[in-house]
Every structure is written in C-alpha cells, then in structure tokens.
C-alpha cells in the first residue's frame, strides 16, 4: 500500500502513542507506580510502525526486551499494557510478565522476550506453522544488533532460508549492546551483510527514516507472503534513553545523545516529511498529540483503578490446569 496522507497520519499517531506511553511509564517508575525495569523504545519508533503497517491482524510478531513499540504498533490495547506495567490483573499478561514479557495473543503478538535472540527461533517456527498449514500469514521477528552474535540468530536464519519460510527478520541496530558500542564487539559493521551467509536478501536502511523502513518492509512482507522466503532488514537507529532504568550512560556522550534527539528524531523527521507534502498541518499535529495524551491519561486511570493480584494467583498459569486427557 502506498504511503498516502491518511496512512501516514495513522502511522504518525502510533509513533506518538509509543513515545508518550513510554515517557509516561518512565514518569510512573519515578512515582513508584511502575516497578521493575523498563527498556524504552524512544528514538526507534519508526521501525515498529513502518513494519507493522504492512501486517494483518493474523500475522505474527515476536519481540525483544524492548518491545512496547512493537506491541502498540501491532495493535495491543494501550490500557492493558499500562495495567501490565502497573502489575495489575487487567494487564496484558495478568501481572505475570511485566514489561519484558508483554504479549497480546489476541493480536498475534507472541511476546516480548527477555533473552537476546530468544524470539528468532520461535518466530521462524510460527512461519513454519504457516507453511505447513499453507496459510499466507507472515511472521516478523524484531531483535537488536546484539542478537546477531548469538547462535539462535544463525540457526534461525538457516532454517528460515532452508525451508523458504515466510518470516521477516528485523534487526534494530541501535549501535549499543547494552553498554558496549557495537563497533567494539562486532566484526562486520552491518548486520544486513550477514544475510549473505544464509542466501537471503539483506537490506540496511536508515531506521530514523520512516519512508525507508516502510519501503524495505513492504518488499520483505510481499516476498514472504508470496512464499519466496525470508529477508533480513537492518534498521540503523538510536535509543534516546539508557539501556534500561538506572543506566548511567557513561559509554556515550551527552553531545551524541543530544545530536540524535535534535537532528535524528524519527517523529520530528516524519512530521517534517508529512508537512512538506501538505499531509499534516500544525493544527492537526497538535490535535494528534492532544488525543494521544488523553489516551495515555485514560490508560493510567485504567491501570490505577485495576485490582492488584491476589496471593493465590501465583499458582495459576503454570500449566493448563483444566486439561484432562481423553481417548
């Protein structure tokens, strides 16, 4: 689908939904309402929204420890996500998963994943399921550049290519593997180059440029749906906040962060891109942000008013307790 004014406004709105959801979540950690840690996606929003714009409700998405953006872009209800961060029983995972394991199976969002590269094998497996069932559902696995060092990345890509599975591997290369610059621990600059080892297309795009990610994803999703196999997309990006809460960020300079925030913010860039085309006026821009802010407030209210779990909840959901075998 061509990137038209209406679709662009929807995508733009989703970028703000991700940005403001996370900034509110960060605020709520300082208030003590959100406990545990958070890995924020701020600065990387263009990738999730541009990729998910090509997906149907029944397509699969698997994420990382940094997956609020993937979930929102794939259509997870924000109020239930906020409730999950608040540890409430109305949360997406009924307070059992939290930020790092957030999932919404009603939208085929099969989960954030606290293990680096943990989603790559399973995301290739959902694609295998599509192939066996002769369904044209595609699977998208998001992962960071750190994942490209792990075995499951290599094994997953091998299987995906070997059996021509309908899967799109999206590497969000934000330049840092937690606190270590990628250049210190990687031997190839672009993760996309690693696609050659598995005989699949590898594409590197500017992850701050929504149009670029959108185009690469469009081709990859179409290729997967046609049954022609996987694509590895590397989107070069940057995270505006630290790796997780409490990151002192001693490994990068204030100037570097400020430069990205000022000049390479995907929301600012896309807003300007739309305005150039007369697809977004200043009033509309403000209205979108006002509306998103209202949605954030509603999600916080929903979370605050939701019940905390009871001690007996700890024992449920280990196995399907209702299940009994029958001949």
């Amino acid at each position: 689908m061509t990137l038209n004014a209406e679709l662009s406004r929807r995508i733009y709105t989703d970028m703000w939904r991700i940005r403001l959801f996370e900034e509110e979540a960060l605020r709520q950690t300082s208030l003590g309402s959100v406990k545990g840690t958070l890995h924020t996606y701020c600065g990387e929003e263009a990738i999730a929204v541009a990729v998910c714009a090509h997906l149907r409700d029944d397509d699969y998405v698997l994420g990382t420890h940094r997956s609020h953006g993937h979930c929102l872009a794939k259509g997870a209800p924000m109020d239930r996500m906020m409730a999950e961060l608040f540890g409430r029983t109305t949360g997406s995972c009924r307070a059992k998963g939290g930020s790092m394991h957030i999932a919404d199976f009603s939208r085929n969002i099969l989960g954030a994943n606290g293990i680096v590269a943990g989603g790559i094998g399973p995301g290739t497996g959902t694609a295998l399921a599509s192939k066996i069932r002769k369904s044209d559902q595609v699977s998208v696995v998001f992962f960071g550049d750190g994942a490209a060092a792990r075995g499951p990345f290599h094994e997953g890509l091998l299987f995906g290519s070997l059996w021509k599975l309908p899967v799109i591997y999206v590497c969000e290369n934000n330049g840092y593997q937690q606190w270590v610059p990628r250049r210190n621990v990687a031997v190839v600059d672009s993760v996309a180059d690693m696609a050659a080892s598995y005989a699949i297309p590898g594409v590197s795009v500017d992850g701050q440029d929504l149009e670029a990610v959108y185009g690469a994803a469009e081709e990859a999703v179409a290729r997967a749906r046609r049954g022609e196999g996987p694509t590895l997309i590397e989107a070069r990006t940057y995270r505006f906040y630290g790796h997780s809460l409490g990151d002192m960020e001693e490994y990068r300079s204030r100037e570097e962060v400020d430069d990205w925030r000022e000049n390479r913010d995907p929301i600012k860039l896309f807003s300007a891109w739309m305005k150039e085309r007369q697809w977004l006026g200043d009033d509309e821009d403000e209205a979108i942000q006002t509306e998103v802010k209202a949605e954030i407030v509603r999600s916080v209210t929903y979370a605050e008013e939701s019940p905390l779990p009871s001690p007996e909840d700890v024992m449920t959901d280990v196995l399907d307790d209702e299940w009994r075998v029958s001949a």
Partner: protein
Amino acid sequence: MRTIALRDALREALHEEMARDDSVFVIGEDVIAHGGPYTVTQGIVDKWPERIFETPIAEAGIVGLGVGAALAGMRPVVEIMYVDFITCAMDEVVNQAAKMRYMTGGQASVPIVIRLPCGPARLVAAQHSQIMESWFMHVPGLQVVAPSTPYDAKGLMKTAIRSPDPVAFFEYKALYVSEGEVPEEDYVIPFGKADIKREGEDATVVAIGGMVPRALEAGIALEDEGYDIEVVDPRTLAPLDMETICESVRRTGRVVVCEMDSSFAGTGAEIAAALAEQCFHDLRAPIVRVGSPHVPMPFAEELVNVTVPDAKAVANAVRKVMA
C-alpha cells in the same frame, strides 16, 4: 495380545496421532533417513511428507522452531538424538517453552513434545549417555515422562502429544528393543498416575525408567530370600504421583528409591524428601537410594558396570532396608 518392542510402540503412537490430528508434525536430525537412529519416525515420510522435517544439526533452532510452531497451534514432536544434546537448546526449553504460559498470564499454550533418548547403551561415554530427568523436573511448566514398558510408552506418548503444555519425554535407549504387550487400539495414560509393576508386601521399590526392569529382576532374585517387594513405577516425574508411592510405603514401611542417573540432587532425592515429609512415621527403616555415583559416564565397560546400578544393586538396597 500382541507383543512389540518399545520403539515400535512409540512409532505406532506417532503414526496414530498424526493420522488423528493434522497439527502434529515431526522435526529433528536424521528423522527421515532410516526413521532416525532409533527408527521411531520410520514410515512417516511416506504417509505425511509435508509433516516431517529433517534438519541441520542445530538443536537450538530445532527446539526454537518447535516452540514457535506450537505457539501458532501446531503440535511438534521434536527428536533430539541424544538427551546430552538438549543442553545446546536449554534456553529454548527452559526460558521459552516452559515459561511462556506463565509469563503471558495464560495466553500461550506450547504443546511441544521433546523426545529425549537417554541413558547408557553401546559404551558411548560421557556425552552420549546422560539421563538428566531431574534437570527438567526442576523447571516449572515442564512435564517429565519416563516410560519403562512398551504399553506405557504408547499411552504416554499419545497423552504427551495431546497435552497443551510442553513435555520432556525420556526414552531409555537400552529399553527400545525390550518387548511387551501393547493393544492395537487407541488408549491414553494420564500424567501423574504411577503404576504398580509388581505387588509385594515387604518393601517398596520406587524405580524410574530403565531401573524398572532391573527392580523387577531384583524382585525375582529376592523371592528366594523370602522378600516380597513391591515395584512402583511413577511413569511421569512431573507431575509426580506421590499419593500412590506413599500409599505403598505406608503398607510396606520400607522403601528403596532407584534411578539410573546420579543420585546427587536427583529424582530419587526429591522422592525421598517427599517421603520423609509425608510418611516418616510409617517408615520402619531409613530410606535407601540407589543411583549412579556422581561421575560423568565413563567409557570402559568395567567402569560403566560399577557406575550404572544393576539388579544386584537394587537387591542389596532391599536387603539393607529389610535388615
């Protein structure tokens, strides 16, 4: 009733379940060529060529794909050639398959069966002979199955495939060719139901997997000494049917717990601890455990013979609790 080998019973279960349910598929190394090293997957490629996947040697990938396919509603039966190799896919088993239902607040179902051929056979030493059941018992969200007879193997495999949650299915390599009566019709064996393999009055011998035939052999030998032992086979280690085990121990007042794996922090340790908590006052002698010493599996037969407990070791343990 007809008599078939344990590996034939497993194969029959697979074929029946694949015929019954289109979502069942097989994935693993060499599963088409020769039907796997143990021939359990033989014949599947002829009937369902689109539901059997022969893989590169990439266990993390194999199990990872299985987890994903299961999340998408398929029922993968994964063959790991030797249980020892599952260590290459422990993240996929422990962090992905086992925890997914819980982490997602009950949204996820991971109906995967991971077949784990285990135990000493053919003197293949430390990296091809482990058992490792207790590793998996310790992970919440996993079901652990260890059949000792062809009858149990077929019924438990069918239950495993129909289960909505992950199953680690231990197949003792030494038992693949052991024979027993197996009905041709469909039947299932519920998880968490131990089976009394031999009734007796004097002592309870809890035996797991490959130790069951050895315990039964010990039972025959001990008859001459006037000891009538009861052999209880838990069949599934998670869930573990302590009720049946305790009921037996309350009757006999004496118990030996046998496993082929290292006793240290093993399956028998869990059973012995649970017995101490639940049946202490019924015990007329201290619990005795039988298992391997805490060493990797050696190569030379002379060393293997003093590592893996045999029927004599079981009999000696019974004499100890009877003394």
